[in-house]
């Protein structure tokens, strides 16, 4: 018998709560998306504060402002918070908000699971912060947490274990989210919308979800092993017991490199919306962009040991991983050229979103180039574990992911809230971030060449002037952050209202469903079921 014959009773209108209860029980993908964004926002302040403490300690070569012990805690928690509790949830939140609307769906495939994914972030976040108050303080083995440093012998106390446990729990949330995205995009597209009609932000979420689905479980497994080594005396990574710390590095970076793409691919997607929108042109080379995204996703699983060139892996392995890493530069270059071509010859509106997008291109090119340099083994051996790597990772993560995130927020804020952000404050925010960023992170290349090691609370006195310069630049970033926060909080209540479905006039040129529905969208997204009629050119 065919199951399709079965009668389907019409659904009752959803129960309505209001106020706090509404937020606590919501299964609306848009509200959950906003919850993720708020979560990221709050944690960004904590993570930024930790960075400030790190910079204060580095004000002088042998500072007494905080102990080296606390420095290690701050450094570890800064990276952990920024990666797992700011950039990842912020992009998941944006994806949550936008993907169903962009594909013309009413919600995610599993709305309750979606809510679960968000709430699953809260207990581990609390664990992370609570670990500061345990006897030996929080984790301090770095976000990579290599054993034996993170093992029971050198990191006694509950902090490191809580850290590993929290990573496992957040992993559950990520995996559930990835499943939800993949099913939603595969099965809930509006009639008429094929795979090659998907907006590039949706495509970037497809690839990101695959990376999450296959990479995060590996770090969960590794954290189980690490935790078990610490708590039950097993020997997975304990050299004295026949385990191998080098293996930890392999497994960690097998996750770790896809993880950095998890943090940049959504920003790539955002760029492909913002740049064409304010250049009043269509995306240049759509097909090539999809292929580039997919090949970055695949190659991303084959480059992990470029983080381990100095760890004693064989020359053959070095050559292999160097080659694959250099290869990734090709699809990355394709993407950058596509954004440039999307802007080329257009009439450009220098809105704040566009400024952040152009800032992204400028800074990400530098970060990508330093990445390609690091992929060359002899060069990497010279600067590994120096501030050059810190410069690289911040150019791609701050100059890339965060600038992309900001572009997204300035671009979609009116759609999400029905209010406009102050453009004047936004410009201040942009210039403070852009100049402050270059001020802080550009000199780090130099420090790296000069041989200043990263991850250490002390340094040789001749580095002091540059370090002071950098620490002072932190104030610009702080000011930018304050202005941004004020702008958002103020505009949420008092910003100019708009109910224009398409305030930027995006759909005059492009075809993107989120600009066809009400501003802000109704809980059911679309009054009429959207039909997608692909405009082939």
């Amino acid at each position, binding site marked *: 018998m065919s199951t399709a014959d079965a009668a*389907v009773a*019409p659904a009752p209108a959803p129960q309505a709560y209001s106020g706090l209860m509404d937020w606590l029980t919501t299964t609306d993908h848009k509200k959950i998306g906003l919850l993720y964004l708020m979560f990221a926002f709050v944690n960004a302040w904590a993570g930024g504060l930790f960075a400030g403490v790190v910079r204060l300690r580095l004000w002088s070569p042998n500072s007494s402002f905080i102990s080296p012990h606390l420095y290690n805690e701050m450094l570890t928690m800064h990276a952990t918070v920024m990666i797992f509790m700011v950039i990842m949830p912020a992009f998941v939140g944006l994806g949550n908000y936008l993907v169903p609307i962009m594909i013309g769906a009413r919600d995610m495939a599993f709305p309750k699971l979606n809510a*679960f994914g968000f709430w*699953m972030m809260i207990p581990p976040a609390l664990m992370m912060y609570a670990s500061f108050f345990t006897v030996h303080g929080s984790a301090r083995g770095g976000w990579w947490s290599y054993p034996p440093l993170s093992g029971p012998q050198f990191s006694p106390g509950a902090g490191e274990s809580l850290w590993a446990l929290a990573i496992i729990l957040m992993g559950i949330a990520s995996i559930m989210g990835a499943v939800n995205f993949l099913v939603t995009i595969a099965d809930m597209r509006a009639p008429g919308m094929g795979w090659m009609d998907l907006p590039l932000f949706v495509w970037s979420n497809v690839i990101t979800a695959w990376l999450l689905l296959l990479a995060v479980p590996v770090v969960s*497994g590794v954290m189980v*092993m690490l935790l*078990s080594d610490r708590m039950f005396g*097993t020997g997975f990574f304990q050299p004295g017991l026949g385990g191998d710390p080098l293996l930890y590095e392999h497994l960690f970076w097998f996750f770790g490199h896809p993880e950095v793409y998890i943090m940049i691919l959504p920003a790539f997607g955002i760029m492909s919306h913002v740049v064409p929108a304010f250049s009043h042109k269509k995306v240049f080379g759509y097909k090539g962009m999809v292929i580039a995204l997919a090949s970055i996703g695949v190659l991303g699983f084959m480059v992990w040991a470029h983080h381990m060139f100095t760890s004693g892996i064989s020359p053959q392995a070095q050559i292999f991983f160097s080659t694959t890493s250099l290869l990734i530069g090709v699809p990355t270059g394709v993407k950058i050229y596509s954004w440039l071509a999307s802007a080329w010859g257009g009439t450009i509106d220098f809105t704040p979103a566009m400024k952040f997008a152009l800032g992204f291109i400028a800074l990400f090119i530098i970060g990508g180039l330093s990445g390609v340099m690091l992929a060359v083994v002899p060069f990497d051996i010279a600067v590994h574990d120096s501030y050059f790597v810190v410069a690289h990772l911040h150019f791609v993560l701050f100059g890339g992911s965060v600038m992309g995130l900001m572009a997204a927020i300035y671009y979609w804020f009116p759609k999400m809230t029905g209010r406009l952000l102050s453009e004047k404050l936004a410009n201040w925010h942009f210039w403070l971030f852009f100049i402050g960023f270059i001020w802080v992170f550009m000199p780090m290349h130099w420090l790296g060449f000069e041989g200043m090691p990263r991850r250490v609370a002390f340094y040789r006195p001749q580095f002091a002037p540059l370090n002071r310069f950098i620490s002072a630049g932190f104030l610009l970033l702080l000011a930018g952050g304050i202005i941004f926060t004020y702008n958002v909080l103020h505009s949420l209540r008092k910003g100019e209202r708009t109910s224009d479905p398409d305030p930027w006039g995006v759909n005059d040129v492009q075809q993107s469903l989120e600009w066809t529905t009400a501003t802000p969208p109704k809980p059911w997204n679309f009054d009429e079921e959207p039909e997608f009629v692909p405009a082939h050119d």
Partner: protein
Amino acid sequence: MNMDPISTSLPTPHGGAAAAAPPGHAAHSDPSAHAPQPSGWPLLLAFGIGLFATSFFLLASGYHVMPLFYLSALICVLIPALGWATTIARERHHQDPVYTYRILRRGFFYFLLSEGAIFGSFFAHNIYLRYAHAKTWPPVGAPYLDPHLAAIGTLLLVFSSFTYHWCHQAFLKGKKALAKNWLLATIALGIIFLCIQGYDWGKLKAFDKFTYQHGAFGSEFYWMTGFHGLHVCVGLLFLSLVYYRMETNQIDQTYNFSLTAAEYYWHFVDIVWVLLFFVIYLL
């Protein structure tokens, strides 16, 4: 091994939008009915899991906390889980069964892929130590892992994949009594498998004084078989649930996703075991 008529008649994954309609494509006049129902269970379950993890953590760190605390943590997981399950069972009658079946099946399949990746990290660990790190494998002093008994367990588990498959087929053909018998056989085989593994563990511990603290080799052996054993236990719970739902007529030829999910899960557990057996006992 999925041959049931429903899924084969379903469009291929890439059939995409041309296939069965998502909810909301049905004729409704009031668009607000398309908004999803709010629910407090996700939040409660997340906090239950957080509490449970915390209590596990305290226990393993040797803190002495009242047993009541562990008990309440467990309750905080179970009640939301049950509440959530009942809500879903209630809501399913408002959804297009073909569509619901399809998204659940795909979602569950992807979930199993990620489970496979967790096991993958353990396999990678084993293979790496064996071929790239250890001087000898098994290391000096490690006991001989006798494959004979485990081989019997392997055969039984593989057989149970077939019995479950027959159960599924019988149920879809409407032969409920037969389906229940095959299901009971599957559960019995699963339990026997667990007993054999338990006996193996006991023997290794008692005679060879071999424990998980016996270096990386012991850690791998106990974690890999143990983690798999945990999956068998979950699978058995899953099968019992299916049995219960058959018994109480909660599944029929239209709504039977739990039957398929259990099938996927059980085959998954089976495949992982065959690989484990090969890597741990034979290699």
